[in-house]
């Protein structure tokens, strides 16, 4: 029920740290924040999901929406996630082929493109 969102700049990346549960009730907040960031001209975003406890298809849909929006500006959206139960739903839906997914934030930042 709780969703936490915190963003900060790290070099030319914007890191959006998401915590708690992302479902149909909370996902609109995540969508809004992504829209705001892109509207602000931030086209290089890392969504750090290390502290996400639950994510379902509504959350996946918001991330896909964010990716489309960013790609229309030729930007990049990368994810940080190391929880098997969450990686599993990216795999089932074929989204591991669409998002670059890193185990840690450091790896994501180092691999920056």
């Amino acid at each position, binding site marked *: *029920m709780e969703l936490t969102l915190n963003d900060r700049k790290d070099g030319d990346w914007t890191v959006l740290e998401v915590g708690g549960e992302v*479902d149909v*009730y909370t996902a609109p907040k995540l969508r809004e924040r992504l829209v705001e960031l892109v509207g602000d001209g931030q086209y290089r975003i890392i969504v750090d999901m290390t502290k996400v406890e*639950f994510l*379902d*298809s509504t959350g996946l849909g918001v991330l896909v929406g964010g990716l489309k929006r960013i790609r229309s500006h030729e930007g990049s959206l990368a994810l940080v996630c190391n929880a098997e139960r969450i990686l599993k*739903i990216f795999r*089932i*839906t*074929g989204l591991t082929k669409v998002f670059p997914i890193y185990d840690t934030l450091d790896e994501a930042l180092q691999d920056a493109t």
Partner: protein
Amino acid sequence: MSLVELHLPPDTQFVSLARLVVVTAARRSGMDEERLEDLRIAVSEATTNAILSHQRTEEAQRVVLSFGTRPTDEVFQVTIADAGPGFEPLPADDLVERDWQMEGGLGITLIRNLTDDVEFVRGEGMQVHLRFGVSLSSNGAS
């Protein structure tokens, strides 16, 4: 029948309560932690769909989840019933081909892949039956 029922107003704030209640009941039926995560997502998807269907059709009735173990066949079953118009889900194999840019369909894909068995029944309203095998020998309750 010894199924528990949870009746939820068509408000998305209650999806998280549905997850908590069903997962707690299943844990007590002896389901292991990994399967509980699959159940948690499948219940969330089906309950979300049922509530959104009521919202689209301004149906004020509650969505009904009924769940429990059928001792005869070692199955934990959750039925999510709504009073909306229902839908005809795409057959399972068509879903593999989805393009990520396509809108929707992620929820049904997850439900099909995370359950041992799922049945979509369109009658008066829609009933989705999710089934998970459990080993009753490891039953946590006693």
